C-alpha cells in the first residue's frame, strides 16, 4: 500500500453500514448492478478483446499523467506534482510493459512436462479502496490490471482524494468502453463515506475487496468476511554497511525519501550506518542538501512530527516538504534543504522518530558492529514494518544474505532506493505495483507486489499423468538343468555359501562348490531353515567381514535367499538401519526412506533357488524377523535383488510332494495377483500369463511324478517368471489374507494362499464396493484379465462372467488335484476359535502392504467376509454364482 496508518485521517471503517439513507442505498445498489452485469459480460471476452482495450487505456493514462497529478496535489495538498506525474507514468507504462504479453484469458500458462495448465477465471466485482497519498496512480494501476483480467471495479477513494480519483476513473472508463469494454465496468463512489464502504464490503455481489489504504480500511476489509487484498503499513529499515558505494547509497536514499515528499510507504525510515563510515556519510548527506539535526533539533522534531499520545506521525507533516515542516515547527534550515536527518540512539517509544514517517524526515543510527546494526534493523522492522520493505547497501554478499534472513519484509531492496525500488521494474525485476503485500506479519494474505495474478482465480487443468513404470529383473538369469555350471564364469577370491543344514546333508552344497571358479576360497555358512532373524543376519555379516567376501552364493528356499540379501545389504552398507528401511511406502519413487548407495564393501550375490515358489532369486524383497521386538519387517528395494539368479531344476528334483504343491500354488498366486494388479503392465502381464500357463500344465505332473524332469524344470521356471511379474507389479489381497492367517494359525504360506485363492478371484472379479485409485489403469479390468487368463488356458466360456467362473473352477480342480484342504474348517480349526481370531486377522490383513496394488480396495468388512468364505470353503464358483455384478465396462 502507498498510504499508511498515519495518513491525515486514520480511517476506521465501521463494520455495520449504519445511517445509510434509502436513496444512498439505491445508489450503491445501482453501482453494484452495473458492475455485476459488466463482470458477467466480460467473461465472454477473448485475450485479443482485452488487449485491444488495455493499450489505449495506458496511452490515455500517459496523456493525462500531468493533469491527474496536478489535480491530486491540488485536492490532497500532499506530495510533489512532478513526482506524481512520474508515479502516474509508472502506473501506466511500466505496468503495461509487464502485462502486455501476458495471457490472462483462457489457458494462461502451460507446463507440458507436468501435464498441467493454468486457466484464468475472473474474480467478478471488486470493491477497491484507494489512498490519499498516491490517489491517481493507484487508480490508473488498478484500472489497467482490472481490464487485463476482465474484472469490474467499484472505486471508493479516500474522501479527501475522491475528485482526482473520479477523474482518473472517468478517463480510464471512457477509453475502455470506447474500445469495447462492457458498460459499467468501472464506477467511482461520489463523496464516499464510511457507511458506503461498510455496505459495499458486505455486498453479496462484491467478490473481493482490494484495500489500499490505512490500517483501518485494511482491517475492515479483512473483517468483512470477503476475500480481500489488504496491504498494510511499513517502517523501512536501511542498513548502510561499510563496504557500500557511499555516493550511490546517499543519493539513492535522498531520491527515495524525498520522492513525492516521502509519501510512498516503502521509503526509508531509519538508516543504520556502520561506525567506520558514519561521519563520511553524514558529510555527504549534508553536502547534497540534507539538514543534519543536532540533539536539540532531533528532540524538537520527535515531539512535533510524531504524536506523543499515539506514537504515530502527525497528519500535518505527511507529504510536506522538508522546509515547510522545518518552518512549521520552528527549525532554522537552509531554503534548499531537501531532507531533515535526525540521529537517534535506539528504537521504540523513547525514540519517537524510529517509527514510519511519510515525509522527508529520516532517522539515522550509528552502529558499532554488523551485529548491532542488524539488531537495530530488526527492531525497526518490528516497530510497524513487518512484511513490508527493507533496504541494504553493501558489497558484502554475506551481509546482504544475513540481512535478508533476519528481516521480515516482502521486498528487500539491495543497493537501490527503497520507495521506487519497491514499486518494481525501475531499479530491479520486481513486478511493478502500487500495492505492496506485507504477508501474515503485516496482516495481509500475500507478500507479493500485487498485480494481475492477484486479480484472477487461477484454475489448474491437471491432465491424467501416468507415471513412468518399470520392469526390473536381475541380470543375468541362468536356467535349465545344470545351469549351476555358470558359476564358473564369476571370478572370486572369497565366496561364502549361505545355506541350510538339509541342503548340505543331501549334497546340494557340494554341487555348488564344484562349480565355483577355481582358486576361490569357499566358506559355507549354514543357517537355520526359517525366516531369517536379526541375530542370524548379524552373524552372517561377521562371517562376510572375517573372510572379506567378494561373492555370496545363497543356496536354498526363500528364507535362505532373503537372509543372504540382508547380509549383503549390511555387509556393503553397515550404517543401514533395517528397521528404518522397512518403513511403509505407497510409491517406490516417492518413498521417504532411501536405501544406502555408499558402500564400504562390495559382494556379488548369486541366488540359487531350491524350491519352485517364492522366486526370491529375482525379487527385491526380503523378510526379516526381529525376535527382540517381536515383529517381522519386509524390506523392499531393487538394490536387494540378487545380481545373478540360477534356476537349475536339479536342486528341486527331490522336493517332497507337499512342498511341491505349496510352493507351486504360491507361484500361481503370485502370477494371478500380478496379472490383475493395478501396477500390471504389458511387461509383467507377459510373465504372469506364461507362469499361469506353466503352473496349470506342469504343477499336477510335478506333484504326481516328482522325477519328471520337464515338469520340474518348467515349474522352476514358472516360479522365477511369476516372481519377475510380481517384483514389478506386486501382489494383492490374497497375500494379505494369507500372511495374517498363516502367521496366526501356523499354516504354510502356499497352503494359506490356496485356501483364499478361489474366493479372492471371485471377489476381484465382482464390482468393487470401493475402487482403488490408480493412475495406471483405465477403468476396472480385473474381471477381463481373469477372462483373458481363462482364454489362455482354453477353459471355455463365452461371456466374461462365464470365463471367470471357468477360471475359478479350474483353480479349484487344481487345488483338489494337489490334495489341498479346501476349507479352513478342514484344518481342524474350530468355528469358535476362528470367530475369535477373525477381527484381529482382518486388522492385520488390512495393515499388510500387499493389497495396496490389489485392483479392488478391501473394506474391513470384506476382509472378514473373505476369511469366512475361506473357512467354509469349497465350491466358490457354484456358491457365489460368480460374478453377479459384471456391469463394469
Amino acid at each position, binding site marked *: 500500500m502507498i498510504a499508511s496508518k498515519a495518513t491525515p485521517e486514520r480511517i476506521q471503517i465501521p463494520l455495520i453500514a449504519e445511517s445509510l439513507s434509502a436513496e444512498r442505498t439505491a445508489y450503491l445498489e445501482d453501482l453494484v448492478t452495473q458492475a455485476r452485469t*459488466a463482470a458477467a*459480460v466480460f467473461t*465472454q471476452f477473448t485475450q485479443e478483446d482485452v488487449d485491444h482495450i488495455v493499450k489505449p487505456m495506458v496511452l490515455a493514462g500517459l496523456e493525462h499523467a500531468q493533469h491527474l497529478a496536478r489535480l491530486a496535489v491540488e485536492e490532497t495538498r500532499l506530495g510533489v506534482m512532478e513526482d506524481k506525474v512520474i508515479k502516474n507514468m509508472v502506473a501506466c507504462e511500466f505496468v503495461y510493459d509487464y502485462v502486455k504479453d501476458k495471457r490472462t484469458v483462457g489457458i494462461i500458462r502451460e507446463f507440458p512436462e507436468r501435464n498441467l495448465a493454468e486457466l484464468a477465471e475472473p474474480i*467478478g466485482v471488486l470493491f477497491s479502496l484507494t489512498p490519499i497519498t498516491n490517489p491517481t496512480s493507484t487508480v490508473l494501476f488498478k484500472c489497467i490490471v482490472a481490464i487485463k483480467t476482465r474484472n469490474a471495479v467499484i472505486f471508493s477513494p479516500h474522501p479527501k482524494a475522491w475528485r482526482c480519483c473520479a477523474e482518473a476513473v472517468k478517463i480510464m472508463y471512457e477509453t475502455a468502453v470506447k474500445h469495447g469494454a462492457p458498460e459499467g465496468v468501472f464506477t467511482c463512489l461520489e463523496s464516499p463515506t464510511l457507511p458506503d464502504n461498510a455496505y459495499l464490503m458486505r455486498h453479496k455481489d462484491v467478490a473481493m475487496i482490494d484495500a489500499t489504504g490505512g490500517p483501518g480500511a485494511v482491517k475492515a476489509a479483512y473483517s468483512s468476511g470477503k476475500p480481500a487484498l489488504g496491504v498494510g503499513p511499513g517502517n523501512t529499515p536501511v542498513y548502510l554497511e561499510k563496504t557500500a558505494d557511499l555516493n550511490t547509497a546517499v543519493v539513492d536514499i535522498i531520491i527515495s525519501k524525498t520522492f513525492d515528499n516521502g509519501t510512498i510507504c516503502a521509503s526509508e525510515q531509519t538508516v543504520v550506518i556502520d561506525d567506520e563510515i558514519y561521519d563520511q556519510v553524514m558529510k555527504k548527506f549534508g553536502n547534497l542538501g540534507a539538514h543534519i539535526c543536532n540533539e536539540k533539533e532531533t528532540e524538537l522534531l520527535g515531539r512535533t512530527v510524531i504524536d506523543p499520545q499515539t506514537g504515530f506521525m502527525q497528519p500535518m507533516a505527511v507529504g510536506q516538504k522538508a522546509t515547510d515542516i522545518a518552518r512549521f515547527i520552528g527549525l532554522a534550515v537552509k531554503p534548499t534543504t531537501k531532507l531533515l536527518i535526525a540521529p537517534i540512539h535506539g528504537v521504540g517509544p523513547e525514540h519517537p522518530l524510529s517509527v514510519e514517517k511519510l515525509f522527508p524526515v529520516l532517522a539515522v543510527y550509528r552502529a558499532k558492529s554488523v551485529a548491532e546494526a542488524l539488531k537495530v534493523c530488526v527492531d525497526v522492522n518490528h516497530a510497524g514494518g513487518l512484511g513490508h520493505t527493507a533496504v541494504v547497501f553493501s558489497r558484502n554478499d554475506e551481509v546482504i544474505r544475513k540481512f535478508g534472513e533476519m528481516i521480515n519484509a516482502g521486498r528487500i531492496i539491495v543497493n537501490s532506493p527503497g520507495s521506487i525500488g519497491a514499486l518494481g521494474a525501475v531499479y530491479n525485476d520486481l513486478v511493478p505495483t502500487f500495492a505492496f503485500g506485507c504477508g501474515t506479519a503485516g496482516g495481509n494474505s500475500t507478500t507479493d507486489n500485487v498485480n494481475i495474478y492477484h486479480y484472477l482465480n487461477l484454475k489448474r487443468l491437471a491432465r491424467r499423468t501416468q507415471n513412468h513404470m518399470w520392469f526390473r529383473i536381475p541380470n543375468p538369469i541362468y536356467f535349465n538343468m545344470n545351469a549351476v555350471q555358470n558359476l564358473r564364469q564369476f571370478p572370486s577370491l572369497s565366496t561364502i555359501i549361505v545355506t541350510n543344514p538339509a541342503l548340505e546333508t543331501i549334497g546340494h552344497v557340494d554341487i555348488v562348490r564344484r562349480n565355483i571358479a577355481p582358486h576361490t576360497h569357499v566358506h559355507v555358512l549354514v543357517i537355520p531353515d526359517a525366516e531369517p532373524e536379526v541375530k542370524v543376519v548379524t552373524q552372517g555379516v561377521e562371517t562376510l567381514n572375517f573372510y572379506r567376501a567378494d561373492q555370496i552364493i545363497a543356496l536354498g528356499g526363500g528364507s535362505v535367499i532373503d537372509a543372504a540379501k540382508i547380509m549383503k545389504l549390511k555387509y556393503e552398507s553397515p550404517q543401514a538401519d533395517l528397521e528404518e528401511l522397512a518403513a511403509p511406502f505407497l510409491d517406490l519413487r516417492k518413498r521417504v526412506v532411501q536405501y544406502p548407495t555408499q558402500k564400504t564393501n562390495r559382494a556379488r550375490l548369486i541366488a540359487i533357488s531350491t524350491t519352485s515358489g517364492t522366486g526370491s532369486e529375482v525379487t527385491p524383497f526380503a523378510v526379516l524377523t526381529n525376535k527382540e521386538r517381536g515383529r517381522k519387517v519386509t524390506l523392499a528395494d531393487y538394490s536387494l535383488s540378487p545380481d545373478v539368479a540360477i534356476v537349475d531344476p536339479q536342486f528341486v528334483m527331490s522336493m517332497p510332494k507337499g512342498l511341491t504343491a505349496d510352493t507351486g500354488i504360491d507361484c500361481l498366486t503370485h502370477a494371478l495377483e500380478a496379472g490383475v494388479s493395478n501396477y500390471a503392465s504389458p511387461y509383467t502381464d507377459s510373465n504372469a500369463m506364461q507362469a499361469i500357463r506353466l503352473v496349470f500344465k506342469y504343477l499336477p505332473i510335478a506333484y504326481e511324478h516328482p522325477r519328471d524332469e520337464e515338469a520340474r524344470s518348467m515349474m522352476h521356471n514358472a516360479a522365477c517368471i511369476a516372481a519377475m511379474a510380481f517384483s514389478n507389479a506386486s501382489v494383492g489381497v490374497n497375500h494379505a489374507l494369507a500372511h495374517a492367517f498363516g502367521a496366526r494359525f501356523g499354516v504354510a504360506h502356499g497352503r494359506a494362499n490356496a485356501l483364499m485363492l478361489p474366493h479372492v478371484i471371485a471377489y476381484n472379479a465382482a464390482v468393487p464396493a470401493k475402487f482403488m485409485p490408480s493412475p495406471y489403469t483405465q477403468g476396472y479390468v480385473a474381471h477381463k484379465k481373469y477372462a483373458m487368463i481363462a482364454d489362455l488356458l482354453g477353459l471355455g466360456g463365452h461371456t466374461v462372467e462365464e470365463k471367470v467362473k471357468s477360471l475359478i473352477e479350474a483353480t479349484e480342480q487344481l487345488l483338489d488335484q494337489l490334495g489341498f484342504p479346501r476349507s479352513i474348517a478342514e484344518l481342524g480349526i474350530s468355528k469358535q476359535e476362528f470367530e475369535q481370531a477373525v477381527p484381529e486377522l482382518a486388522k492385520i490383513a488390512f495393515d499388510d502392504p500387499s493389497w495396496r496394488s490389489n485392483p479392488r480396495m478391501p473394506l474391513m468388512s470384506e476382509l472378514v467376509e473373505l476369511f469366512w468364505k475361506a473357512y467354509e470353503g469349497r465350491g466358490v464358483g457354484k456358491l457365489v454364482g460368480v460374478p453377479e455384478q459384471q456391469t463394469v465396462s
Partner: protein
Amino acid sequence: MAMAAMLMTIDEKRMAVALREAREKLDVAEGEVVLDFSSVRRLDASALRALEELAQIAQEKGVKVVLRGVNVDVYKVLKLVKLTAQFFFVG
C-alpha cells in the same frame, strides 16, 4: 386444442430491439414464448438488461419464456447475473 408456442429468432446484431419486440408480444403469447438464441454468440449489457425486463414482465403475465440454442458462454453470463432461473432452456 393444443396451442403452438410463439417462436422468435434473436439476431445478435439487433438483440436489444428483438428482445423489446418479444416483450411486446408477451400479451398474445398464449402461455409460452420460445426465443431462438442459436445465432447469439455474445451478450452485452443492454441485452442483459432487456432480458431481465422480459423475464420480469413474463412472470407478471404468467408467460413461460423458453430460450433455445443458448451457447455455453451466454449461459454462463446468464448464470452469473442469476437470470437462468427465470427462463427455460432447450437445445
